[in-house]
């Protein structure tokens, strides 16, 4: 009887989760999706807690209270820190899967071959390896995003890196195979921790050769791993809700990772094993190129005369905390009848969709946030392209310079606008360590300075008119 109740509860929860994701297809219904997700989770937790096999409640209550105590502050981080929080939550998800897998292994060990069938054993080891590698990999990614001192930002490489990594994984898989064949051997309880240590180590080694610019893809891939570890847990526990929820999470991470890879014209293997983002050596004998710069007064005059202004934001805008000034500029221009659109590159920001959230926080209507492919169609008609803290995503070298590391990456065609203003703090190369051709273009004028201060000047100039 109780079995039917809990299975029915899990079925309801699965349906609610699917609806939750379905409602995310437009911002108008998206919040309904959150409520469906909460309802599904609540149902699943309650029917599980009511299981007759659950007899100790003190630890459960304590863990739930602690989860709230940590979870509530974690949900209040600034939006610039959302990528780190997301990476951290993948780490927590991985840890949960790894720990439950570990507990299950030692529990079933007592049952001998009965409890540890080959299928269950394979699922269990997959859960443990995926869980623990997601734990350390995500912690590394979170450290890189948070710019923690002892986590190197630039890729760390050494000879035979990929060979060494795969040897490690190979050893773990070989041990796993041995364990699957002899789960009741005397050495089994001793080999299992070795697999755990190898998985933890593999997670670290997988992330250190990957540079900061690739973190959006890495987060998406780790999201997928976290989902798959939940699927594996579902196989171990024969729980279809876990399998469904994990599969939804896994496919979400996969799709986001594919979108990120396409947006950078890279392949999965290239992101994971390519060590992209090392500092480029400057080409020898290159001529000194010169920037043209413009004053805020001059730029304000041009902006005022424009019909269509396209603002191209990058993560630099968020670093300078310039979103709210950008919003003021948007208001000033709108007031004068200028059409203002924001061009959003899929990898603007530090995780998929990050830039949209940062602009939405500044009260910019989402109807004016335009995707790269759509805005590129309008760029030749654009009077002014204003680049705020973006760099690689507007670099025309991606189109023609075969030696450039970003060659082939789809970009926002800022250089096709009649006038380009680029706000830049200094003359250093961007996140990916590459020089930008756009800044030397015939129609480009640089506005040097802190993004927030420069846009503040522009707003002041426009306001004075």
């Amino acid at each position, binding site marked *: 009887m109780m079995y039917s109740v809990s299975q029915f509860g899990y079925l309801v929860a699965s349906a609610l989760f699917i609806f939750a994701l379905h409602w995310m297809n437009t911002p108008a219904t998206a919040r309904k999706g959150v409520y469906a997700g909460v309802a599904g989770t609540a149902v699943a937790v309650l029917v599980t807690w009511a299981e007759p096999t659950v007899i100790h409640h003190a630890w459960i209550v304590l863990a739930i209270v602690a989860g709230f105590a940590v979870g509530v502050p974690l949900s209040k981080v600034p939006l610039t820190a959302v990528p780190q929080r997301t990476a951290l939550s993948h780490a927590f998800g991985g840890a949960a899967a790894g720990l439950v897998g570990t507990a299950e292994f030692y529990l079933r060990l007592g049952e001998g071959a009965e409890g540890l069938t080959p299928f269950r054993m394979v699922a269990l080891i997959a859960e443990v390896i995926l869980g623990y590698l997601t734990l350390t990999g995500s912690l590394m990614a979170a450290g890189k995003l948070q710019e923690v001192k002892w986590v190197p930002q630039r890729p760390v490489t050494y000879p035979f890196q990929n060979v060494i990594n795969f040897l490690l994984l190979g050893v773990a898989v070989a041990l796993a195979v041995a364990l699957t064949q002899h789960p009741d051997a005397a050495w089994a309880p001793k080999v299992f921790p070795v697999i755990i240590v190898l998985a933890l180590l593999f997670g670290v080694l997988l992330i250190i050769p990957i540079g900061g610019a690739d973190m959006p893809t890495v987060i998406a891939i780790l999201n997928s791993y976290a989902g798959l570890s939940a699927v594996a847990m579902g196989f171990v526990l024969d729980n279809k809700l876990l399998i469904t*929820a994990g599969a939804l999470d896994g496919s979400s991470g996969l799709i986001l990772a594919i979108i990120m890879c396409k947006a950078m014209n890279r392949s999965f293997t290239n992101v994971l094993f390519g060590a992209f983002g090392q500092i480029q050596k400057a080409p020898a004998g290159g001529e000194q190129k010169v920037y043209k710069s413009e004053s805020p007064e001059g730029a304000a005059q041009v902006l005022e005369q424009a019909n269509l202004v396209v603002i191209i934001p990058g993560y630099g805008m968020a670093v300078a905390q310039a979103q709210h000034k950008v919003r003021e500029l948007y208001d000033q221009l709108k007031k004068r009848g200028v059409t203002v659109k924001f061009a959003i590159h899929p990898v603007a920001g530090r995780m998929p969709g990050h830039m949209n959230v940062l602009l939405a926080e500044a009260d910019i209507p989402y109807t004016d946030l335009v995707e790269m492919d759509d805005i590129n169609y309008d760029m030749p008609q654009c009077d002014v392209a204003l680049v705020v803290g973006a760099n690689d995503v507007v670099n025309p070298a991606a189109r023609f310079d075969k030696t450039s590391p970003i060659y082939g990456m789809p970009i926002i065609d800022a250089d096709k606008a009649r006038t380009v203003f680029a706000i830049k703090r200094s003359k250093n190369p961007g996140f990916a360590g590459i020089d930008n051709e756009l800044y030397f273009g015939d129609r480009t004028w640089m506005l040097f300075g802190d993004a927030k201060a420069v846009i503040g000047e522009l707003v002041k100039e426009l306001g004075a008119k």
Partner: protein
Amino acid sequence: MTSDFWSTIYVFVLASFIGLGVIRRVSRLLHTPLMSLTNAISAIAVVGAILVAGGDHPLRIRILGAIALFASMTNIVSGFLITDRMLKMFKSDEKPPSTELRAGR
């Protein structure tokens, strides 16, 4: 075991197809909230953690379960809260404020 095995594989494959279909239609505007939402949803691993933490098991096993339960619960709470917080910020400008409120129903 064999029928169990096949039915779980079945569920996994079908759920993956549903996932790919549904996620592909999610607005690109919402990919960040999508990630925090799927994160909270996959923290349903809490179910496994409750069974381990609350079962009639040795203490050290239950402690592992309790830590897993804490980790999952943190993801559930922070995941849903931050998703809602971000989604609240998305406003359209094509409708007057009164219908905008209703659009969020």
